[in-house]
């Protein structure tokens, strides 16, 4: 096998290269030639192709994402310790603690190979958190699938759930929440977004950079194999097969294969390396593998980097240099280490049975050079690979069909009238794909490990204790509603933000910061690009209004089947701080005699609602109105009510409205409730509207006066709508009553019936 060196490239400027097959456009290839002043070697071409891919370079989304960078870089607690651009954002949560969190997509791999795709999605985001110097303490997963009863969902969903669980459980990270949503547009393009959160002391923060000439570059963790080549770009393996003429390398699957045990060792080993101060710079290897880690570390530092590729330990000795540079083999990290610390570094790795090899060093020149079999195969300015890729101003345009969609108001849909019809609707909704109990999924996730899980699914937010002495903790929620976003991308993104914010607030936490995963169709479709631009604008404006920074996240484009894109799906994760987790509020009625209050104003809002979807298969009109000032008032009210012990349970109202919130609240502890419809509301609207900025709470007997004066003092809408009892029935007075057993059967059996117990 001949190696394409830089000398060879200079001598053979006109050799044809497979840039198009690697996913590069002709002007992009021309630009690489321009940067280098010659044609790239095959190794350089491999690096540029993966790093300039949409996934790594954000070339279509960058111009819009700038809005997030313009937001205030602080929270109500303090300045961000790290923001967008690092592996993950870092938020001060007080008492000297910092929290880092981020959400990322692993959509396409999870369709091709559901178990490994989802598992390595979890593994990748965990390494991002680890690379900041934090101990990962929890994960969440936000999932979207095709119709519940579609045959392919039978293949994809169980594999994805087993993969998320298999990897997270084996790492010992509690899974504390997330979502599962079904819609036909995700049928051949499921969404698997994984969030990880980690905790550190302020002084433990580490940033990704390679500084200090002479410092050693150490690759540690798993050996490099042929898996995941071209995972971030396209069609890579076929191209290499052709270019070197060997049919033997065949097609390699672009999906990576995970080993959570290796990752567990990597976590413990890395945290010990951090604690002994042995790491000058660090980067995880994820998408684009060594190409990404070397070029990003070198760009962020003050020097260049020289790497001897022969020193990379391989699982497959036949790999070519370009394959080694592109491999996305999992469970690998790269550290920059001072020469004097290398021996101790290696010793710690041996303790954990983690393989480590010095593969290069930091050099003075601003070049990234890679050597293979004694010859130079890469010699590039690292910033041109990592940060100076193409940036596109994609055309965008409001789709022509948007007007018709907005005009198709749900007001003409037939509504249930009378107690029997309302009763039947409530049960049907409670059993529907998007509202039924998720326990079939979440029972496969360990939520107890580490012993700090204070709230987990099905609660509105996950709450994790981070300091046993003071009770300081964090709360997290992810939300997204593709139907709302399709009706109005700007409002839809804000509604996702509002819901995640509210879900954090109902636990008694103060929301602080945002991470987002923006899942959309092809950026080459101007209509999709309009959805994207509007959603980013809505999210950025919303964050500004709520005083929260966006600390990082991920964009996933090209989520479509043929010409049909997925519902535009911005997933928003909100992080909050809980002063003392002992005062957290779960949902669910527990004590007979407690009074049920509905907080917030209920309007006749059914555009994009679960009711319209389940009963009429209808999507049209406008989504519920967003008022983030009211959301903030609600959050503030709940914070004070929680602090003063005035509420014993709180539940966010969202998909399915009050009817669904009541269903979940009575079933949690098997308590009944007697509910009455306020005089000014129609029973149907009362039960099923999805107006935002609402919650249902239970107030201990005897605290009603204090609670209502708290609401009145803030002029926040509140209505006494019922009382908790132990009669074993959910009764809506004058309308209907449902025995809890019947409601439970409807709500809890659906997923097990579909996927098998």
């Amino acid at each position: 096998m001949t190696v394409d060196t830089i000398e060879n490239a200079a001598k053979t400027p006109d050799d044809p290269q497979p840039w198009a097959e690697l996913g590069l456009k002709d002007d992009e290839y021309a630009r690489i030639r321009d940067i280098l002043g010659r044609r790239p070697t095959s190794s350089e071409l491999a690096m540029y192709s993966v790093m300039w891919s949409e996934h790594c370079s954000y070339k279509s989304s960058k111009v819009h994402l700038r809005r997030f960078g313009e937001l205030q870089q602080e929270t109500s607690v303090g300045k961000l310790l790290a923001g967008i651009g690092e592996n993950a954002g870092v938020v001060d949560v007080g008492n000297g603690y910092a929290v880092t969190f981020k959400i990322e997509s692993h959509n396409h791999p999870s369709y091709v190979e559901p178990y490994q795709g989802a598992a390595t999605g979890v593994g990748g985001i965990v390494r991002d958190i680890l690379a900041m110097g934090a101990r990962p303490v929890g994960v969440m997963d936000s999932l979207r699938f095709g119709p519940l009863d579609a045959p392919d969902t039978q293949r994809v969903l169980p594999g994805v759930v087993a993969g998320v669980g298999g990897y997270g459980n084996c790492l010992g990270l509690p899974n504390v929440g997330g979502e599962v949503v079904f819609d036909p547009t995700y049928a051949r393009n499921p969404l698997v977004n994984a969030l990880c959160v980690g905790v550190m002391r302020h002084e433990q923060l580490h940033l990704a950079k390679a500084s200090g000439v002479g410092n050693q570059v150490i690759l540690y963790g798993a050996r490099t194999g042929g898996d995941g080549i071209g995972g971030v770009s396209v069609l890579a393996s076929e191209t290499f097969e052709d270019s070197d003429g060997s049919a033997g390398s065949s097609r390699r699957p672009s999906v990576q294969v995970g080993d959570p045990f290796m990752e567990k060792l990597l976590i413990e080993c890395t945290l010990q390396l951090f604690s002994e101060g042995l790491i000058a710079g660090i980067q995880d290897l994820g998408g684009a593998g060594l190409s990404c880690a070397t070029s990003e570390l070198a760009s962020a530092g003050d020097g260049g980097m020289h790497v001897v590729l022969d020193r990379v330990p391989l699982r497959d000795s036949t790999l070519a240099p370009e394959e080694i540079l592109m491999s996305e083999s999992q469970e690998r990290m790269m550290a920059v280490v001072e020469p004097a610390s290398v021996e101790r570094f290696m010793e710690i790795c041996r303790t954990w049975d983690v393989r480590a090899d010095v593969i290069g060093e930091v050099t003075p020149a601003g070049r990234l050079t890679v050597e293979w079999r004694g010859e130079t195969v890469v010699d590039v300015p690292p910033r041109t690979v990592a940060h100076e890729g193409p940036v596109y101003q994609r055309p965008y345009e409001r789709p022509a069909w948007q007007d018709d969609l907005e005009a198709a108001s749900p007001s003409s849909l037939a509504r249930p009238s009378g107690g029997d019809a309302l009763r039947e609707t409530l049960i049907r909704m409670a059993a529907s794909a998007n509202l039924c109990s998720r326990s079939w999924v979440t029972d496969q996730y360990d939520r107890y490990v580490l012993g700090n899980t204070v709230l987990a699914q099905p609660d509105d937010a996950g709450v994790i204790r981070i300091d046993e002495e003071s009770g300081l903790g964090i709360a997290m929620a992810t939300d997204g509603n593709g139907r709302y976003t399709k009706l109005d991308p700007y409002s839809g993104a804000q509604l996702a933000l509002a819901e995640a914010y509210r879900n954090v607030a109902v636990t008694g936490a103060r929301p602080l910061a945002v991470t987002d995963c923006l899942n959309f169709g092809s950026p080459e479709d101007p209509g999709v690009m309009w959805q994207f631009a509007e959603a980013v604008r809505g999210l950025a404006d919303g964050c500004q209004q709520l005083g929260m920074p966006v600390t990082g996240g991920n964009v996933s484009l090209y989520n479509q089947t043929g010409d049909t894109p997925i519902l535009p799906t911005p997933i928003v994760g909100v992080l909050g701080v809980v002063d003392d987790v002992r005062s957290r509020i779960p949902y669910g009625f527990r004590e007979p005699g407690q009074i049920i209050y509905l907080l917030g104003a209920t309007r006749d809002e059914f555009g994009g609602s679960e009711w319209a979807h389940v009963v009429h298969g209808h999507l049209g009109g406008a989504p519920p109105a967003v008022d983030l000032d009211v959301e903030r008032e609600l959050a503030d009210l709940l914070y004070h009510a929680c602090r003063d012990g005035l509420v014993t349970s709180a539940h966010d109202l969202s998909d399915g409205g009050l009817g669904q919130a009541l269903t979940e609240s009575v079933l949690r502890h098997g308590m009944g409730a007697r509910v009455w419809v306020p005089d000014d509301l129609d029973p149907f609207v009362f039960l099923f509207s999805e107006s935002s900025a609402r919650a249902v709470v239970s107030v201990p007997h005897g605290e009603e006066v204090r609670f209502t004066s708290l609401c009145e003092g803030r002029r926040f809408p509140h209505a006494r709508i019922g009382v908790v009892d132990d009669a074993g029935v959910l009764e809506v007075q004058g309308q209907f009553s449902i025995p809890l057993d019947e409601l439970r059967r409807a709500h809890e059996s659906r997923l097990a019936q579909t996927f098998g117990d």
Partner: protein
Amino acid sequence: MRIGVVTFPGSLDDGDALRAVRLSAGEAVPLWHGEPDVRDVDAVVLPGGFAYGDYLRCGAIARFAPIMESVIDAARGGMPVLGICNGFQVLCEAHLLPGALVRNDRRKFVCRDQRLRIENARTLWTSSYTAGQEIVVPVKNGEGGYVADEPTLDRLEAERRVVARYAGENPNGSYRDIAGVVNERGNVVGLMPHPEHAVDELTGPSTDGLGFFTSVLESVVGA
């Protein structure tokens, strides 16, 4: 009273077991799998997790860890040893307990709050309970189905060596609803559910799990 908790590579609930010992007023001693012996501890807990990745078979490699020789000797000498979940698997692989743990009958990992009935309250690890008492602790396992041949099961029953049984739904297909067993001498207990996750109302479904740790503290102090 010093209770050691062994950390193997891949152990996950070691921190929870150490916390449970502390909350029961014992002295918690972290032990590393590579150490040659269990030093001066009075009892040992093998925690939950995926020791050595559970490669080959759950517990099959951990059983050969350097420290295990000392654990096995100490167990044969009467030291109280509790294996929780993965630790139970290790004890079976080490032949300190009869039977084996196989893939759940539903072929899925299961994590939920589980009712258990304490069947034998005379072991070193269950004396704080009363026989027949029902408790609630988390169960979480992928390979938690307890199996043994019929004569072994009959013998376990006859000798009152079933320590705890699943009450209500059996989460993993364990034969005769067995959740935990004890050796002949009564000092080595293997338990599939996780009492160390039920030691604080804030983070667990109950505090019912504390009894396993207070039992051994009392029994050793009283000995």
